[in-house]
């Protein structure tokens, strides 16, 4: 409703005619989904925000895994009472290489948390490393995107979002299995890979604190 009113007020703007897509979306029954984006790069945060907003997602962008956990209401590995906004996060998209706590660490923390494990997580990285990809998918990531992230990547994210109008931990008892559209298009072939137990055998630069 809000979007409809916003759009109708902008329909007289000279420079940008209201796109058909946005108007169609506004009058359709697409529910609003909230995505938490985690990336230490200010440019990439801006880009992912733009990509997500164009698909009508509500976006919260943070610059570290620790801030992401804070937002989600988890401190020191223990779940505190979930903040109301955190329980409405429908998808988390995180960079892999970040100083301090990596995207992989964040993924693990989320999947280890009873309160958060049902939230789908997508990992992004500029490095096309089979070991890294395999370990993230094994840990429960829905998809591993190779940067730079494109519009077509973001359009696929909708398939991972469950119950966009309800909190993911609604306790409804429904089985939330992995999405059948868990695309590995960007991953390349994983056949015959030796799975290493330590995903950090690929240097991640996370040991270097960059001011």
């Amino acid at each position: 409703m809000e979007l409809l009113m916003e759009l109708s007020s902008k329909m007289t703007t000279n420079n940008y005619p209201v796109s058909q897509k946005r108007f169609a979306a506004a009058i359709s029954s697409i529910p609003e989904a909230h995505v938490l984006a985690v990336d230490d790069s200010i440019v990439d945060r801006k880009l992912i925000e733009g990509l997500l907003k164009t698909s009508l997602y509500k976006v919260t962008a943070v610059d570290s895994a620790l801030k992401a956990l804070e937002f989600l209401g988890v401190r020191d590995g223990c779940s505190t009472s979930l903040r109301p906004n955190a329980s409405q996060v429908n998808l988390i998209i995180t960079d892999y290489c970040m100083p301090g706590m990596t995207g992989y660490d964040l993924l693990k923390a989320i999947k280890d948390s009873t309160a958060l494990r049902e939230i789908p997580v997508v990992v992004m990285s500029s490095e096309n490393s089979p070991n890294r990809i395999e370990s993230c998918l094994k840990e429960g990531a829905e998809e591993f995107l190779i940067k730079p992230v494109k519009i077509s990547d973001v359009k696929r994210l909708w398939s991972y979002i469950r119950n966009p109008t309800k909190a993911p931990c609604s306790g409804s008892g429904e089985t939330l299995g992995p999405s059948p559209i868990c695309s590995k298009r960007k991953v390349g072939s994983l056949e015959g890979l030796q799975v290493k137990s330590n995903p950090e055998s690929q240097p991640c630069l996370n040991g270097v604190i960059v001011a």
Partner: protein
Amino acid sequence: MSAASMTLQAGGAKCKPRGPCSGSSCACESEKSVVAQKQEREEDEAGEKDDGAVDVEKLQQKLIDLTETLLAEEVLDQQFTQLQQLQDESNPEFVSEVVSLFFEDSARLMEELTESLKQDPINYVAVDAHVHQFKGSSSSIGAQKVKAVCIKFRKFCEEKDREGCQKCLEQLKQEFALVKSKLEHMFELEQQILAAGGSLPYPEEEY
């Protein structure tokens, strides 16, 4: 925009990214000769006295031509087109906002790299970390040549090659200055189009 004292240095752009150029030493159109620029300015001014719509179309065509040239010369790649597709009525300055962040972030990274390469011994891990960041951000906005230099730079870091790293830093500064100057020119054209009541000829988002 005065054509009389145009410099040909790509790194000397004095234009603000989103405003008409008023400086006397502006590198916005450094690729054109002084004579050609003066001619163009006279044509633009002549156009203003006639039908305003013609002026807007001319500016729109210039913008399209500039973008196509930058793509053809691989200064920018298709990722930049992605950014343009994301700009719409709800996000009317998206491209210039992302690019401005890129300019600021890059300036910081180049300063850090300059300092890091002055050290003795060089901490190649720290240098590589900065180049990795630069590679990431240039890739995200589609600054293809900048990204290509970053890839080369990382190899020299791996090999702990001081001279190779120094050369790459110089190249990085040049390529960055070039793409910055071109993008600033694009934004200037956009402002002129919008000021004349026209719309930006951006690609539509594909479904």
